[in-house]
C-alpha cells in the first residue's frame, strides 16, 4: 500500500485536510526512524508498537520489531479465538530395567544446604593453613620394610655333591597364563566345540572342492572323459597284399589296419568304437601268418577286413554283431611285432567284384572303414 493511498483514505474520512495529513504522516515517519535509531519504542494507536532489539553474535546489531496491539492480535486470530488448550492425557514415566530410582534416605548432597536454595560459597572467609601445617609437622613417616630378595644358587657343582644349599623351589608366578582351548571347561568354553566343528567342516569342504577341481572325483561340473589310447596294429609294408591298392576303401597309410571302425548294424544306432590314435612310425617287425582258426571254408581268395583288436572279447563281440546283421564274419589271429592281434573279417570271395559288392552292402548297413585283403 502506497503512502499516497493511505493519505487519500485518511482525507476521505474527513479527519483533516490533505496538507495536514501529509505533514503529520511525514513527521510521524521521521520521528519513528529517529526513535528506532535511539533504541526507543514508538506506539501507534489502534495498531501496535515498533521497537528494536539487539541481535547478532557481537550483540551490536539492532533488528526492528513490531508488537501488535491486543485488539489487533485478537482480530487477526478471530477464527481460533475461542479455542483453548485441550488436555488429552497424562504422560506416565515407566521405569525401565536398570533404572535406579532414589528412594529417600541419606541425601546425596550436603545436608546443610537446603534443597531448592542457592548455595553461595563464602569466598571472603579467611582460611588459615595452621591446622594443615601442624598436621604435617606431627606426621610420622612410616617406612615400609624392603623386600628381601633371595638370589638363586647357581653353583650346580655343590648341588651335585650334596654340600650346597638345596635349591629353592620355584615360586608360582602371579601372572597365570590364559587357559588354552583344551583347558577351558564346559562353563567357560561353550564356544570351543562349535569352533572345532566349523573348522573341520571348512577343511572337508576345501578338500572336496580341490579334488573335484583336479578331476580326482566328479561331483559337479563337466565330466572329463577318460582318454584310452589304442595302438593300432602295424603292418609291414612287404606283408601288405598287392591287391589292397585296388580296394575300394583302403586305409590311409597302407601300413596299418583300421583299429576300430564304426559298426551300426540295422539303423546304425549302436556304435562299437571309433578309430583313434596315430599311425605307428616305428619299423614294423616281421609278421607270422597264423592259421585261420574260425575262417569259413569257402574257396575264395579275397576277404573284407573290418578291424583288428588286441582283445579277443571285443573282436568276437564285433563279429557277433556283424553276424547278427547278416554278414559272414569271423576272427583271425595274426602276430604283429610279437603281439597277437585278432582281425575281424567278413566272407571269402572269389573275385574283387564280389568283395566290393559285399563292401557296398556293409556300407548300406552302416559299416564303414573296411577294405579288401587277400587270404594267404
Amino acid at each position: 500500500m502506497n503512502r499516497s493511498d493511505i493519505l487519500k483514505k485518511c482525507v476521505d474520512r474527513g479527519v483533516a485536510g490533505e496538507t495536514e495529513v501529509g505533514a503529520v504522516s511525514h513527521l510521524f515517519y521521521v520521528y519513528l526512524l529517529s526513535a528506532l535509531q535511539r533504541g526507543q519504542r514508538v506506539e501507534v494507536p489502534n495498531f501496535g508498537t515498533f521497537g528494536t532489539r539487539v541481535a547478532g553474535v557481537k550483540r551490536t546489531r539492532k533488528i526492528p520489531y513490531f508488537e501488535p496491539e491486543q485488539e489487533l492480535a485478537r482480530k487477526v486470530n478471530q477464527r481460533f479465538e475461542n479455542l483453548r488448550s485441550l488436555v488429552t492425557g497424562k504422560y506416565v514415566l515407566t521405569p525401565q530395567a536398570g533404572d535406579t530410582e532414589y528412594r529417600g534416605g541419606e541425601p546425596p548432597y550436603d545436608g546443610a544446604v537446603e534443597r531448592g536454595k542457592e548455595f553461595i560459597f563464602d569466598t571472603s572467609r579467611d582460611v588459615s593453613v595452621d591446622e594443615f601445617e601442624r598436621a604435617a609437622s606431627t606426621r610420622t613417616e612410616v617406612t615400609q620394610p624392603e623386600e628381601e630378595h633371595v638370589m638363586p644358587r647357581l653353583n650346580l657343582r655343590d648341588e651335585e655333591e650334596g654340600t650346597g644349599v638345596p635349591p629353592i623351589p620355584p615360586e608360582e608366578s602371579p601372572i597365570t597364563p590364559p587357559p588354552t582351548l583344551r583347558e577351558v571347561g564346559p562353563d567357560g568354553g561353550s564356544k570351543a566345540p562349535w569352533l572345532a566343528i566349523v573348522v573341520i567342516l571348512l577343511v572337508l569342504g576345501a578338500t572336496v572342492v580341490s579334488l573335484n577341481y583336479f578331476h580326482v572325483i566328479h561331483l559337479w561340473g563337466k565330466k572329463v572323459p577318460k582318454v584310452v589310447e589304442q595302438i593300432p596294429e602295424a603292418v609291414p609294408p612287404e606283408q601288405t597284399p598287392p591287391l589292397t591298392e585296388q580296394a575300394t576303401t583302403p586305409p590311409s597309410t597302407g601300413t596299418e589296419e583300421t583299429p576300430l571302425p564304426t559298426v551300426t548294424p540295422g539303423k546304425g544306432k549302436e556304435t562299437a568304437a571309433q578309430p583313434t590314435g596315430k599311425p605307428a612310425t616305428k619299423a614294423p617287425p616281421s609278421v607270422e601268418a597264423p592259421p585261420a582258426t574260425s575262417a569259413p571254408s569257402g574257396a575264395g581268395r579275397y576277404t573284407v577286413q573290418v578291424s583288428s583288436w588286441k582283445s579277443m572279447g571285443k573282436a568276437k563281440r564285433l563279429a557277433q554283431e556283424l553276424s547278427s546283421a547278416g554278414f559272414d564274419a569271423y576272427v583271425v589271429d595274426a602276430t604283429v611285432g610279437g603281439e597277437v592281434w585278432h582281425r575281424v573279417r567278413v566272407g571269402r570271395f572269389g573275385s574283387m567284384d564280389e568283395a566290393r559288392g559285399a563292401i557296398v552292402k556293409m556300407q548300406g548297413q552302416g559299416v564303414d572303414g573296411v577294405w579288401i585283403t587277400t587270404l594267404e
Partner: protein
Amino acid sequence: MSQDELINMISERAGISKQTVRDIIQTIGEVWTEELLLAGELELDNIGDFLVDHRPGRKGINTETHEIFIIPPKDYLLFTPSRDLINWSNKAQ
C-alpha cells in the same frame, strides 16, 4: 517514546493542534488495521511488510504435571522490517 510524546513533538513541529494530530495518527492506525485484516498483508513503504501467518495446532507436554494437551491453531501477525528500516536503525547517530 510514548504516544503523548510523539503527538507533542509532531504538533510542535508541524504547528497543528494536538487533537488534530492525535486524530490523524489514530486514523492512520485504523486504515492500516483495516487493510491488514481485509487483505491479509500490508506493505508500508520504508517500514516493512506485515503478514497474517497461520500456525497449525500441535501436541504439547507439560513437563511438570506430565499432562499431554493439544495446542490450538493460531493466526498471528508477522512483521518483516524493510532493509531501509534496518539500516537506519543501525546507523550511528
